[in-house]
């Protein structure tokens, strides 16, 4: 035998990879039980029978920077370039439920996304965009219910019936405690508020996805593919459990749940992850809740290429990385996709960079002919074996989390946080030991940094936002505004549905920060158990 280049081959997540895969790797695996047909249980091959032959994935580039007007222009540009859905990135103060004029917001307004503090900001953000014809995804978690109330209020003002609205709010607080770390309230009231939005959508906004249960940020925080899969799906089960305990029939809301995964560098492992996710979700939903509607068993998902895989060195290489990752998401059967722009490790993307990222998806869709057959890798010894491994290892985590008394208790004890930190340290160690290679960083380095143009946000964004908020506070009826907040607090204190009161508060020109502060008085705030 020829000597191999390495003693041991492992996937990016550390799974041992054999030289060649044969039927021996699939002992006990049954094509009928474990694979099935696309669009049929256990959905390993995809949630629709015809997949991209009928409808391509939604090309949805995450966008948001500066003021509502700046982002509105970018949205219109992206729609004109053939993008098929909108996705809003909010700035950090907005994500933390703070107004642009809050002292803690200083220096952060409009930087990592768009600044939205009031209903008026939301109206400007969607000015001229037909809300009944596009679908809008909003990456907002802690204050998700408030931002959603603003969106609904904009539609109401324009006379668009709520049942015509389609889109998603991320609204996944568990992964905030685990990974992204932008929270407002403690877990118990936060989960109750999420269940409230789920119930409200089931009754009034049936085409809306009230939650996008997200592994993306867990992966970015350094987890393995197995951990991303396990913690995300376990979070999903936690929300379903809470909703069922609150008295909702699983079939009234489960078809509207959606998921959001990262798509990283290990091509086959990522494809297997999407397939394992669908199968594991279908099996767990079936086993735990016995839904009558098959759509309650189907895992729908959005995917985004891995931001943490981008490098500042030789940034044009990022286009190639992103292309491979995007192809894995497509072969994995995603329902929508964001492709990162090459400059996103440096700043928010320029118009040129985001156009190239969108073109990457369009080339895969139109030119690569990879969309013609559903689940083209189904039946591959290697891919099926990896799919089995990922499902089994995720199930191990399920058992451990069950044993800890559920995800909230596990988070309070620091378990998922520590697992992720340990995995990220292992990866760092592998890079430093030259066991893993990054082109342009560990290998094939260039002495000079290549620079590409980047988007800069000026201080005027913050100044203008602060001025607008000052005008808003002067222009409103203070008694009506204060009354709406008191009503909201009363509803929160007696665990009533908050959505109608939130809509009244935003229409009375209460700001995001004021509403979140009022709710914190009732719910309290979250203090992180620091895991090192």
């Amino acid at each position, binding site marked *: 035998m020829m000597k191999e280049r390495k003693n041991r081959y492992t996937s990016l997540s550390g799974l041992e990879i054999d030289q060649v895969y044969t039927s021996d790797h699939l002992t006990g695996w049954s094509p009928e039980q474990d694979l099935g047909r696309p669009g049929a249980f256990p959905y390993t091959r995809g949630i629709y029978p015809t997949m991209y032959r009928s409808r391509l994935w939604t090309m949805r580039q995450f966008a948001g920077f500066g003021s509502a007007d700046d982002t509105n222009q970018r949205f219109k540009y992206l729609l004109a370039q053939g993008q098929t859905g909108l996705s809003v990135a909010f700035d950090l*103060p907005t994500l933390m439920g*703070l107004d642009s004029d809050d002292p803690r*917001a200083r220096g952060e307004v409009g930087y990592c996304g768009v600044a939205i503090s009031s209903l008026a900001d939301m109206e400007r953000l969607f000015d001229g965009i037909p809300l009944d014809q596009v679908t809008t995804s909003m990456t907002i978690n802690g204050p998700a219910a408030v931002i959603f109330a603003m969106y609904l209020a904009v539609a109401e003002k324009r006379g668009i019936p709520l049942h015509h609205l389609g889109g998603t709010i991320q609204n996944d607080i568990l992964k905030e405690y685990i990974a*992204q770390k932008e929270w407002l309230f403690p877990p118990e009231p936060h989960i109750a508020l999420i269940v409230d939005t789920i119930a409200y959508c089931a009754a009034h906004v049936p085409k809306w996805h009230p939650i996008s249960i997200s592994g993306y940020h867990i992966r970015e925080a350094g987890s393995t593919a197995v951990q991303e899969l396990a913690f995300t799906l376990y979070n999903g089960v936690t929300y379903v459990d809470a909703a069922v305990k609150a008295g909702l029939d699983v079939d009234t809301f489960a078809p509207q749940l959606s998921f959001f995964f990262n798509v990283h560098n290990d091509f086959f492992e990522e494809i297997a992850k999407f397939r394992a996710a669908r199968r594991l979700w279908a099996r767990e939903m079936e086993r735990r809740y016995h839904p009558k509607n098959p759509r309650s068993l189907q895992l729908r998902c959005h995917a985004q290429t891995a931001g943490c895989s981008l*490098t500042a060195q030789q940034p044009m290489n990022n286009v190639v990385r992103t292309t491979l990752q995007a192809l894995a998401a497509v072969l994995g059967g995603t329902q929508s996709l964001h492709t990162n722009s090459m400059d996103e490790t440096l700043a928010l993307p320029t118009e040129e960079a985001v156009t190239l990222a969108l073109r990457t998806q369009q080339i895969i869709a139109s030119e690569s002919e990879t969309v013609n057959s559903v689940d083209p890798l189904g039946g591959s010894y290697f891919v099926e074996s990896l799919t089995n491994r990922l499902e089994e290892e995720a199930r191990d985590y399920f058992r451990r989390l069950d044993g800890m008394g559920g995800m909230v208790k596990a988070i309070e004890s620091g378990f998922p946080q520590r697992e992720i*930190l340990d995995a990220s340290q292992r990866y760092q160690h592998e890079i430093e030991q030259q066991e893993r290679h990054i082109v342009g960083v560990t290998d094939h380095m260039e002495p000079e940094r290549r620079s590409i143009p980047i988007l800069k946000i000026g201080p005027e964004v913050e100044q203008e936002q602060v001025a607008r908020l000052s005008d808003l506070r002067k222009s409103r009826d203070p008694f009506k505004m204060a009354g709406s907040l008191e009503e909201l607090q009363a509803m929160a204190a007696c665990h009533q549905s908050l959505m109608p009161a939130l809509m009244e508060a935003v229409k009375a020109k209460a700001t995001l920060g004021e509403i979140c502060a009022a709710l914190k008085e009732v719910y309290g705030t979250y203090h992180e158990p620091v895991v*090192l």
Partner: protein
Amino acid sequence: MAVATTPLRVLIGKVGLDGHDRGVKLVVRALRDAGVEIIYTGLHHTPEQIVATAIQEDVQAIGLSLHSGAHNSLLPRVLELLKERGAGDVTLFGGGIIPDDDVPRLKAAGVQMWFRPATPMQDIVTFVKGLQIER
């Protein structure tokens, strides 16, 4: 002749609203393994809180992690507060994603060192251990 030194005490923290703590936690682990005494603040600290903790804990250096783009306002504010509170001798360094052009500007303002993504961990450890020798 070797002089007996007190162990180096360094505050490592997150300033501003960004929640990206993957990198900073690895730095904390590496510095602790290298024998540096670390006070880690956790997330979402204001410059005022950072400086108050630094003075209370009597640290020789502050290392801040920031990926939000707010470095140009938050880091000069930390330096200003340190001077106001008579702690201008505390070394400020940091790391995170910032545009190339901003590094010289931060250094001119008094940030002693800025580590960018993909910096080998050993470089950070060597820098921090070097602070002890300088004293």
